Every structure is written in C-alpha cells, then in structure tokens.
C-alpha cells in the first residue's frame, strides 16, 4: 500500500516536471498562445479591479520607501535646482526659437509624440515578481489597437516595448529587461550606441558600442536614434527621451566604449503609460 503511494507520488512529480519542460519548449518565443489568452481574458478584469482597490495601500507602502530615499535626494536636488535655474533663462529662449522652427517645418505643436503614431493610454495592472525579468501587464490590448513591438512611454520618457498582446491586455517588456536592446544616441553630440540594461538595477542602463572619438559628458541626455536602412528600421521612433548620462569615466569610454545612463522614467513605480500605436514599420 505504502509502495503504491510512493510510486503514485513519484509518477505525479515526474508528470509535473515533464509537463513544465514541455510547456517551456512549446511556448518559448511564441508570444501569447490560446491558453494564455483565455486565462488573461478571465483574470484581467479581476487584476484590474484588484489594482485599483489596492492602490491606496500600495501608495502608502511606497510612501515609506520614498521617504527614506528623499532624505538622501534632498541635497542633490538643491544643487540641481540651482543649475536648472541658470539654464531656465537660456531654455526659454531656445524654446521660443524651437517653436518658430517647428512652425517653419510644419511639425506638430508639441512634437512629443512622433507623427504617425497614435497614443493609447493604459494602466499597469500587474508586474513580474522576480528581478530576472522586468515585465509589466497593462490593461489595453489588441482590441485598443495595440500591436507587438509598439513602443511604450510615460510622461518622463521611454518605458519599454510591447512583447505580447491579448484582446484586453498587453505585456510590456521594460527597458530594464535583459532582453531589451535599443539603439540610442546622445544629444546634442549625436554619438550613437546600443543601450542594454544591467539586470537587477533598473536605474542603471549601459550605452555600449559608442561609435565615436568624441567624449561623452555627465548630464547629457540620451534619446532613441530611430534608424532606418535598406528597408528595415528601428522599432522605436527617433528622439524619444530615454535618460541622462550619470557615469562617463574616461577609462570606461576608452576601454569598453560604454557609459552609464539613468532612465528618466521611474521603472519601479509605473502607473499610467502610453502605447504608441500605428507608425511606420519596416
């Protein structure tokens, strides 16, 4: 009787292990399949309700975390404020000039959303729990016009790209995910490189393979380069803000051709994002 039980237990365990490997083999690199679409369709409304209901509690916990951090940030922000004040005067003049130039070339009023793209606003309803992959689920999907590879932004800058869609939800792979690689350039110098994350630290992105003899300085902004060549093009439109250079040691630039970037978007606390749907695809 006991042996029979042990045998049955082993059989179930073996079945589960084989099942897991079979699922991995069958679904790896396939995007969302029928089972996932079905489960998502059932649970997404529940996730959405839970997300809204738990927001006050989340905000409370995050408030404690931010309070600890705020003490350290205060001094740095004071210094940054002084610098920003000095730059503001010059910035206003540049803005006025920019507005005129935009009118001249007939661009949109703001220019924040690249032409040809339609933003679809969504809320983050779930987030992956492990540090090894940085994915979030948002409550808009193919029914709202969202497609795989659409870029995702928030008010601060680029957040990630759509990796899989179901009818009412989409999986967004954040720029801090290990699978993310974005061609980016430093402005205003125009130095190009490939941006990869340092897994485990969403505040540290690495701009690698810098293709220039020019030196990159701390504080310079990084935007998407949005290249186009021989009928294919980058999945990201040009000039979406990504972050700023926070570490650019001469040694690292010369030996490894890389600098460190802090993203503008707070990838740990995402709430509302915009998917840039449409646009041209190569």
């Amino acid at each position, binding site marked *: 009787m006991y042996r029979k039980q042990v045998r049955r237990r082993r059989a179930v365990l073996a079945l589960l292990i084989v099942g897991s490997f079979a699922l991995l*083999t069958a679904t790896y690199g396939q995007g969302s399949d029928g089972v996932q679409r079905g489960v998502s369709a059932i649970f997404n409304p529940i996730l959405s309700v839970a997300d809204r209901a738990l927001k006050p509690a989340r905000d409370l916990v995050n408030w404690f975390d931010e309070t600890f951090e705020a003490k350290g940030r205060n001094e740095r922000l004071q210094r940054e404020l002084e610098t920003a004040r000095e730059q503001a005067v010059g910035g206003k003049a540049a803005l006025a000039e920019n507005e005129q130039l935009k009118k001249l070339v007939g661009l949109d009023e703001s220019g924040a959303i690249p032409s040809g793209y339609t933003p679809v606003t969504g809320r983050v309803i779930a987030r992956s729990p*492990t*540090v090894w*992959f940085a994915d979030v*689920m948002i409550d808009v999907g193919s029914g709202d016009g969202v497609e795989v590879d659409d870029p995702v932004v928030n008010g601060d800058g680029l957040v990630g790209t759509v990796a899989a869609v179901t009818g009412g939800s989409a999986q967004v792979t954040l720029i801090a995910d290990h699978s993310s690689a974005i061609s980016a350039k430093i402005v205003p110098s125009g130095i190009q490189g490939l941006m990869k994350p340092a897994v*485990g630290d969403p505040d540290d992105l690495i701009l690698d393979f810098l293709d220039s003899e020019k030196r990159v300085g701390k504080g310079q902004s990084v935007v998407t380069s949005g290249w186009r060549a021989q009928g294919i093009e980058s999945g990201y439109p040009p000039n979406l803000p990504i972050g700023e250079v926070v570490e650019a040691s001469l040694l690292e630039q010369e030996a490894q051709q890389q600098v460190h970037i802090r993203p503008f978007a707070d990838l*740990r606390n995402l709430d509302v994002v915009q998917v840039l749907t449409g646009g041209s695809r190569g």
Partner: protein
Amino acid sequence: MILTPNILARLVAILVGGVILQLSFFSQVALFHVSPDLLPALVVVLGLLGGSLTGAVCGFWAGFLLDCLLIVPLGGGSLVLLATGYLAGTFRERFEIHSPLVPPLLCMGLTLFAELGFGAVELMLGFDAPVSALVIRDVLLKSVFAFFGGWAIYVGVRRALRPALVEEPMVRRGRRPTVLGV
C-alpha cells in the same frame, strides 16, 4: 492533508488570491527598493501543511497561473515553484522539527532557492545582458521579506485549511510540581 471538494476549493482560492495579490500589490510596492515576492513563501507553506505532493502540485499551478497572467513562456514559473513546494513538503515528511521558527526560516531559504531558480531558468532560455551586483541585494532582501511574510502566511493558510490538516493533538503540559508540592 485530507482533500475534500471544500478543501480543494479553498486551495484554489488561496492560490488564485495569492497570485493576484502578488502581481497587483506586492510586485508593485518597494521596500528599500525591492519588491517582496511572497509567492514562493505561499507555496512553501502549502508544502509544509500538505506534504510534498500537495506542495509540488500547488507550486506547478501557481507558476502556471503566474506565467499565463504575465504572458511569459509557460513552464518556467511552474518548474521553479513545483520544486520549491516539493522541497518544503519533503522537509515536513523527513524531519520532525517542531519549532515556530521552521515556517519562516523555510520560507526564507526556499524563497532564496526560488529566486535563484528563476534566474537559472532565464539563463537556460538565453540571457545576454550584464548582471548588476544589486541582484544579490534584491534576492537577499526578498528572502528576508519572505521570512516575515511567511510567518503571517503560515498562520493564515493554516487557519483556512485547518479542517483538512492531519495533526497530532496538542498535549497540554501540566504544571511542574514545586518543592512544596503546591
């Protein structure tokens, strides 16, 4: 664990509730810049209360649901969490250690195992990005959170599944005799 339809329904509710709470609450809050991952702790508790088979099956389905809702390749989460649940259940079956510290310590240790397991699965599937040293901090802090969270989860789940648990009856310890025999 004695499985009746009622207990099965409770188990399903605990698993589904746990996964939803993890995705919509714990994964989106940060304490010391790290989001708690209490799903492995939940699976550990189910393994501790129900044995290795219950732990493995619960882990498999928790991982399956997690992968489905995150639209990531199915099977990775299942594999890691079924191993976590199985190990917790095996601990219960092999060792006769009755201490209130066992559930939280096991939750801590096996959460560490699960986080490293998730990393191993990602490496197996292809991983071509540098890994920050902060991963170590993240994994260790998640384990510490699991220690505290695991204790609370153990108390809650044990209460919810009490009718199904096979436990030795509590033996009330008598008063030790005093010198005067009073």
